[in-house]
């Protein structure tokens, strides 16, 4: 018999290393033709950090994203940006790039204010132009950088950022382990076959507070991918050991979800702006996965009326649990 169940799970996730320094640095070189090079140690492993950092630099410098080149993760030319882990790169390296870009921007603004003879406070950079309050000055950023060059000023910026945390007391753990947290709620709908023990995830709703979503499509991609990995964690995946030896060291024996195993995922982005984040951003990489298995386990418990205490929720365990309850009830 097929039974349906619903489960809900929340999560929180501290952005950056726990109660440990994890600084990131960046350099920005704003060039005479109005393009920019960003040097960052941040490794893009597929999550899209280079794109996000390019967006942050472009926004800050007032140019379009196509005019930014990211040079990343090369120890000879890029500064240390720490690891692409702990969901920290948008927040930490994003801040480093923002600060480096602001550094250059301020130089450009100072020269522009001088040339236009207006106060620096009213000058801004946007769409490749110099703006005076909400009006274009008619002068392009390129012209200003050329002016800088002719005066012998290089428009180079550097920035670094380290999240504000404290050490934790070794006995009580009291302190500030993270500068900011991402939050999420996921709701899953599942169907479980009480004879085959197969659990089918029918839908997942995933609402994630990521701070400002610098690139919403990337955020959605992280959430969808996290949910898929969470489904694997909940139902399929287990490295099986026998006397310390992996019994399933291959993709035909260690099973991850296929396109047919991942249901529709309804993503909702909540943007609870983080004042210390670059343009209000926090992070999403890990949070995407964290509550998924919990929500599925709660849905299975809802469907069966049996709580499972061991991941993954394999058909064998589910059948054993159902049998076990029948035996208990029979006594």
């Amino acid at each position: 018999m097929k039974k349906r169940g619903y489960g809900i799970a929340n999560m929180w996730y501290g952005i950056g290393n726990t109660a440990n320094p994890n600084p990131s640095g960046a350099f920005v070189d704003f060039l005479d033709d109005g393009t920019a090079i960003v040097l960052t140690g941040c490794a893009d492993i597929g999550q899209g950090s280079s794109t996000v950092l390019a967006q942050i630099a472009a926004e800050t410098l007032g140019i379009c994203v196509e005019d930014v080149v990211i040079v990343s993760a090369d120890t000879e030319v890029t500064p240390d940006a720490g690891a692409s882990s702990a969901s920290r790169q948008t927040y930490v390296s994003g801040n480093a790039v923002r600060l480096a870009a602001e550094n250059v921007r301020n130089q450009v603004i100072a020269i522009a204010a001088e040339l236009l003879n207006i106060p620096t406070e009213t000058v801004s950079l946007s769409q490749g132009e110099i703006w005076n309050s909400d009006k274009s000055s008619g002068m392009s950023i390129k012209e200003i950088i050329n002016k800088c060059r002719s005066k012998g000023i290089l428009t180079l910026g550097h920035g670094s950022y380290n999240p504000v945390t404290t050490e934790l007391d070794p006995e009580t753990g009291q302190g500030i382990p993270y500068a900011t947290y991402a939050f999420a709620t996921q709701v899953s709908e599942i169907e479980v076959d009480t004879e085959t023990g197969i659990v089918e995830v029918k839908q997942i709703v995933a609402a994630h507070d990521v701070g400002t979503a610098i690139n919403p499509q990337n955020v959605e991609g992280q959430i969808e991918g996290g949910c898929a990995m969470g489904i694997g964690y909940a139902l399929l995946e287990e490295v099986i050991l026998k006397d310390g030896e992996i019994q399933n060291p291959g993709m035909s024996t260690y099973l991850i979800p296929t396109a047919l195993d991942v249901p529709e995922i309804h993503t909702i982005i909540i943007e609870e702006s983080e004042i210390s984040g670059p343009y209000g951003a926090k992070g999403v990489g890990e949070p995407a996965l964290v509550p998924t298995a919990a929500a599925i386990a709660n849905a299975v418990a809802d469907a069966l009326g049996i709580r499972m205490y061991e991941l993954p929720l394999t058909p064998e365990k589910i059948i054993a649990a159902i049998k076990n309850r029948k035996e208990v009830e029979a006594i």
Partner: protein
Amino acid sequence: MAQFHLEMKVNGKPIALDIDPGLRLLDVLRDILHLTGTKEGCGEGECGACSVILDDELVDSCLILAPQAHGRGVITIEGLALNGELDPYQQAFLEVGAVQCGYCTPGMILAARVLLNHNPKPSKQDIAKAISGNLCRCTGYAKIVQGIEIAASLKETKAGVSRA
């Protein structure tokens, strides 16, 4: 060991090579022809990263020996873009954000191409089935499926452009 004289068409170009017959099609593509867009992920036909099109059908190039492709036509990811212009499948993947780490992407795009050749108006379920032999660990597949849906509509509007 006797060499095998292999003749096949790769991305439309005739190729003739004397090879060790124990080489897989994947090895010939990557190591001899330097077509490294075809990836090896598992070596046992599970992940689909090594997918190529063999005479209009999608196959895992790690599962067949190169001589088995003798006399046949192979299309790899490098054979899709024409004069540097991306084809509709590649364009659609970019538009919807179907690419993250990108390692499964060539295989996925080739799977999409085969699907749309056989079935120009696939349902979501048809698409999921067609890419069920291509594992992706990053995206959760949603944007890949969406990309293929868009490629289908792009192909329809640019029917003449399609080089399929």
